[in-house]
């Protein structure tokens, strides 16, 4: 067997995974432990700026992300940093692109880093990967297939990737490179991994549609409407579960599923689980150790019915 990539990576959980996305954090760590993959949390990390700091000034966001990468590369000596959150992943990727291509960004980051008293990050020092890349490259579909103990057979899953994982295209130079690479228009890494775990992947046309996560609170009616589109489309595709890979999408779907029901009396049936939780269940991990009980969306009745939880 050839040596697989990403056996040992720096881990950047980000703020959301310490707050509303804690079950994503828990399940990612549990998967790493179960699969023998070492993840080492970036020391003294800071917020990447999420969707908000760029609206104040995009170069500040580049600086915030560059500090995280500087610590992973220069202080910890890693060549890959793994971010499960789409927002963090996107921002680190964008910072990487800007630092490689824009002189002004390089100057701002250098000046701020010097004033803040840490090393300046230079493009190419570390590779940013998503939790999906991490599992796909380190374990792969074959690895998952070998290790499945409770097949997800019969569980119909709609995979939802959201906006920040694929757009805009130019910050993801490794995507759209033909067979084996991720696609920005039809992403499939989550489909591949969950299919390997035995799930039935439904053809979901809204994979990369927007959940309105940036407006969850500031413009809730638009968010509720966008989330309802996602939920109703998943229902129409016959999905039991929507699998997510972003804490903002996940909590947006959960929040606005409740809001649609409470405010507008519109009930929708799909339950929402992180793809890491679904993979963990397939590997036979305890739902409690995967944070299934911490989700707002109550998936336990469904999981019990399918014999995936007790």
């Amino acid at each position, binding site marked *: 067997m050839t040596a697989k990539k990403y056996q040992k990576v720096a881990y950047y959980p980000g*703020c*959301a995974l*310490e*707050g509303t996305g804690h079950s994503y954090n828990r399940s990612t760590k549990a998967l790493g432990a179960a699969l023998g993959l070492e993840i080492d949390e970036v020391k*003294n*990390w*800071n*917020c990447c*700026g*999420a*969707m*908000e*700091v760029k*609206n*104040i*000034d*995009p170069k*500040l966001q580049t*600086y*915030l992300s560059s*500090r995280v990468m500087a610590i992973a590369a220069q202080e910890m000596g890693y060549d890959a940093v793994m971010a499960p959150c789409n927002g963090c992943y996107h921002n680190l990727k964008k910072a990487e692109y800007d630092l490689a291509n824009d002189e002004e960004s390089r100057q701002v980051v250098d000046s*701020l880093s010097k*004033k*803040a*008293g840490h090393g300046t990050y230079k493009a190419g020092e570390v590779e940013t990967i998503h939790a999906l890349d991490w599992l796909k490259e380190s374990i792969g579909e074959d690895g998952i297939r070998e290790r499945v103990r409770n097949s997800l057979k019969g569980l119909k899953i709609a995979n939802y990737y959201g*906006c*920040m994982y*694929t*757009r*805009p*295209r130019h910050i993801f130079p490794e995507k759209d490179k033909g067979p084996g690479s991720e696609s*920005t228009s039809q992403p499939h890494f989550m489909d591949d991994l969950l299919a390997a775990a035995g799930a039935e992947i439904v053809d979901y046309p809204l994979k990369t*549609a*927007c959940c309105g*996560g*940036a*407006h969850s*609170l*500031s*413009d809730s*009616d*638009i968010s509720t*409407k*966008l989330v*309802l*589109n996602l939920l*109703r489309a998943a229902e129409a595709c016959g999905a039991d579960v929507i699998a997510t890979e972003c804490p903002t999408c996940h909590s947006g779907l959960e*929040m606005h599923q*409740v*809001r649609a029901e*409470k*405010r*507008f*009396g519109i009930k929708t049936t799909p339950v929402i689980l992180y793809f890491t939780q679904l993979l963990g269940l397939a590997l036979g991990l305890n739902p409690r150790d995967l944070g299934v*009980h*911490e989700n*707002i*969306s*109550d998936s*336990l009745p469904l999981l019990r019915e399918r014999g995936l939880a007790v």
Partner: protein
Amino acid sequence: MPIHEKHLIREENLLTHDKLVIEGVDVSGHWSTFIQTRVVSDYNEKMEDEIAALPGGEHINRCWQCGSCTNSCTVNAINPDFNPRYWIYLIRTGMESELLRDKDIIWQCVSCNKCTYACPRDVFPEGVMKATSHWLTLKGHTPKSPLQIFDEEFAGQVFAKGKIEESRLIRRFFARTGQPVVQDWLLSMVKRMIKYLPVKMLIGLGLQTLFHPRARGWARARAAINEYVHEKEAAHRKALGLPADAPEAPDAQQPQPHLDRKALIAALKN
């Protein structure tokens, strides 16, 4: 019809005559509907440069009006008045008063980046939307939108501590926009959240609100960031020809004109 003629067929621009005879031909009724002649004298020739001076708006001059942005837009699918292509056109031709008709919805861009993905000219329309709503506020045309308030609260926490704490963010946001923190749907969400939640987790989340998460040794980064932000703010005001001590816009209040159930269902059926 070219997009710049769109505004000419608004209700208030139409003239109808019950009785009208032109050159001996009776064109009364249906045939006497005309678009009123209009003289535009209030072009703001600086508008494009002003938007380009704000973060996100830098590449507005590349636009060739193909309409891919509006065609792919998430918000346009919900509200056809949300039209990035049209706004870019108005900004580039300096039709300020026309743009101001839509001033209260421009901030509603959800930053999904579908426009940026589709744009063949790298205009980054998503950035242009942010720059435009920033411009509207700086110029005093609109109060700070709920999104701008959220951005400020979020960025303020990041700049001060290096990390954010969500419950504090939510409380501050609701306070500034004049909304109650206790809302029916938030309550039922919390109820579901604690249904299975282990007590240990609850205590952990509670402690997080008491002891704000923070990056260690952040003081120097904080000072550097604040200095940079001040410089940038001054530069933005200067680019827009505003005095250095121009007062800040007030916060928008009660930002959520809630759709009633019927309207939402009707909208979803479309």
